């Protein structure tokens, strides 16, 4: 796990530039750094040493010196791949997984990607063929950004490295802002930065002879509705799931340093911690975040699980004011505006892990996407159920059952519930059916966009843009699989794994590992019948079945409580912070040109006077504040976004 930057083309004073690029992302690799400069290409690397502590320095060249790699991430099956390659006569000089990729590329070219089980992004400079290959892991755990500047291709693990390139200045992309304020994240390859792109998950790029080609090497796919199910026997499916998850965890314990585990108190991280406990010879260390507010705190479940497993447990308290205090740093690392504060406690949590001397943690992230755990999947099922009888006054009461932790919802009439959830006479064949209410309620935040920004965005529709990018087979999939695809392909890499995952962990040089995102497990789960995942309104049914002996019943049978953090109240409930007042001031907001300054002032006053506000007001508050901080951080205080959309 590390960070890298590089270029392909012509760059004056390349060594100096590469050193500046990797220096900008030094937090990703505090252990070592290095640069490699060739005539037409250069690579720089900062290293977090986890595998091959003494001999895994990068950039790394092969014996011939013709191939050089800069690599961020881990190849979890490198032991098996190395044995295979040795059997074919390959000789290894190091004990690192990095060298395994080099050999595999030498043997298979870009087809090597099909053999890699891991979370990775890397660049390989192939001097013989005079080409640069960039690649990113299947689910998008590790980031990789690129841009074309004056005919030269630049790339890096974080955007702040690209901003070191002479002549490049940060500009906010208005379309990306519209996407964030509708879909929660930009649609890759778009980023928050104008003219800076992201290599999409499961894609590779080959740059050679003045051409750049990008293509997928793997795709998330589901069987057609009505196709013969691969599994009809639930017990057999659960057994296979258990075996896959065990192996996914086992190979993620591979490291030359201790591996810890996050423990949220929920089902997924508890399963991972339980599996890992038996695989950690020195005992497992677990880490949690706790909250002051009862609404968000899960410490009782965390302690119950830690005690049951006998782990050495540490927790960091996210107290009133902590989110606000860390938020400017959170935006600096997230590198984009966000509409929720949820990344901030995770930033604190990775800081705790670093303080305790660990570099690697397992997490339960991905289980909700892979095994249908999110409320949105259940909500879509209830909406379809209601949609079949739009006049029913009874069916909408099910929405209350879906969201017991939202007090305001419990007081709504069936008519209002049906209206808010779009459960009336709505088209059931809408490809975005499952996510339409979320997108609609989020897009209501755009009421704060300035007239100027609205003009520049013209008739742009982020949801329709997303719909236009769906694969041809999408319409043939079961509705649950359609919803899972939307979560897994867009929100998971676009927000969860980036803003809450990689960037918050790597801010403190911590590597997160995700057993539920092992591609073998993902592929297996796509072929499970929908009813094994979402049984009635019980989420992740097959996962519970496969792991029920691992957990106390109070954890194993627990209804999902989504991970949330206090939003606007984090900033208004702890006394007025100078930077918040400044960023939200009418003058500052007016200067940015992005938001209606008078409306933002009223929103700020409303959030100060009413501690509990609805989703729209909370999301808008955090969205405006984070955008203002983004502008200050990346463009300096002279706030002005890109002039044209």
């Amino acid at each position, binding site marked *: 796990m590390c960070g890298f930057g590089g270029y392909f083309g012509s760059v004056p004073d390349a060594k100096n530039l590469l050193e500046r690029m990797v220096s900008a992302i030094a937090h990703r690799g505090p252990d070592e750094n290095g640069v490699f400069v060739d005539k037409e290409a250069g690579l720089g690397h900062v290293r977090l040493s986890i595998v091959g502590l003494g001999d895994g320095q990068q950039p790394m060249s092969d014996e011939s010196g013709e191939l050089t790699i800069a690599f961020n991430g881990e190849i979890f099956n490198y032991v098996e791949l190395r044995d295979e390659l040795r059997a074919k006569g390959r000789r290894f000089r190091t004990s690192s997984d990095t060298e395994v990729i080099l050999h595999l590329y030498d043997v298979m070219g870009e087809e090597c990607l099909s053999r890699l089980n891991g979370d990775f992004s890397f660049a390989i400079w192939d001097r013989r063929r005079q080409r640069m290959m960039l690649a990113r892991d299947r689910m998008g755990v590790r980031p990789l950004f690129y841009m074309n500047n004056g005919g030269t291709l630049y790339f890096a693990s974080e955007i702040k490295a690209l901003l070191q390139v002479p002549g490049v200045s940060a500009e906010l992309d208005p379309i990306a802002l519209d996407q964030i304020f509708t879909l929660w994240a930009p649609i890759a390859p778009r980023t928050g930065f104008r003219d800076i792109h992201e290599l999409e998950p499961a894609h590779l790029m080959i740059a050679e002879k003045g051409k750049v080609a990008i293509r997928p090497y793997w795709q998330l796919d589901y069987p057609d509705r009505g196709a013969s199910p691969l599994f009809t026997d639930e017990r057999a499916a659960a057994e296979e799931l258990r075996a896959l998850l065990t192996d996914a965890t086992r190979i993620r314990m591979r490291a030359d340093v201790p591996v810890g585990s996050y423990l949220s108190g929920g089902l997924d991280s508890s399963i991972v911690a339980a599996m890992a406990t038996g695989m950690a010879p020195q005992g497992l260390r677990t880490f949690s975040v706790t909250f002051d507010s009862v609404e968000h705190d899960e410490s009782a479940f965390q302690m119950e699980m830690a005690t049951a497993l006998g782990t050495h447990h540490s927790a960091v308290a996210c107290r009133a004011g902590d989110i606000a205090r860390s938020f400017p740093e959170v935006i600096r690392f997230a590198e984009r505006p966000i509409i929720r504060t949820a990344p901030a406690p995770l930033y604190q949590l990775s800081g705790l892990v670093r303080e305790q001397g660990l570099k690697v943690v397992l997490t339960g992230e991905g289980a909700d996407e892979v095994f249908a755990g999110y409320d949105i999947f259940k909500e879509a099922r209830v909406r379809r159920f209601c949609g079949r009888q739009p006049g029913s006054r009874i069916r909408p009461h099910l929405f209350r059952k879906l969201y017991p932790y939202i007090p305001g919802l419990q007081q709504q*009439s069936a008519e*209002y519930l049906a*209206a*808010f959830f779009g459960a009336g006479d709505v088209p059931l064949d809408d490809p975005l059916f499952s996510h339409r209410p979320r997108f609609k*309620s989020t*897009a*209501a935040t755009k009421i704060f966009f300035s007239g100027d920004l609205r003009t520049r965005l013209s008739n742009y529709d982020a949801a329709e843009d997303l719909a236009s990018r769906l694969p041809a087979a999408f319409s043939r999939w079961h509705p649950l699989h359609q919803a899972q695809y939307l979560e897994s392909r867009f929100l998971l890499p676009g927000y969860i794994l980036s803003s809450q995952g990689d960037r918050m962990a790597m801010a403190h040089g911590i590597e997160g590992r995700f057993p539920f995102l092992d591609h073998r497990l993902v592929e297996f789960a796509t072929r499970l019948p929908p009813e094994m995942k979402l049984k009635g309104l019980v989420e992740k049914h097959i996962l519970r079945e496969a792991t029920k002996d691992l957990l106390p019943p109070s954890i194993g049978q627990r209804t999902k409580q989504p991970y949330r953090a206090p939003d606007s109240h984090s900033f208004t409930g702890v006394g007025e912070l100078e930077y918040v007042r400044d960023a939200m001031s009418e003058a500052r907001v007016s200067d940015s040109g992005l938001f209606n300054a008078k409306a933002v002032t009223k*929103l700020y006053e409303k959030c100060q006077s009413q501690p509990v506000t609805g989703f*729209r007001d909370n999301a808008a508050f955090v969205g405006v504040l984070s955008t203002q901080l983004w502008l200050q951080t990346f463009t300096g205080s002279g706030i002005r976004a890109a002039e044209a959309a």
Partner: protein
Amino acid sequence: MTETIKDKVRAFVIENFLFGDTSYDLADAASLIENDIIDSTGVLELVAFIEDQFGIVMGDADIVPANLDSLARISAFIEARVGAPATA
């Protein structure tokens, strides 16, 4: 009377849900839900406003879109209920 009630409700909606945006073309019959002006928490804010401002006690059966989903409906509801007991 009707104009006064409607004006007060309109002012509240503009101030609290449209954040002072007087340029928004808020038609009397326009749905507050369909036009994303109000969300589930907003309904409770609206109920609190009606109870405080007009001295009406609203029962659960009153809190339905038929009574509250447009300026016209809200003002008609208030007008009919001023001084009358709650229905639930």
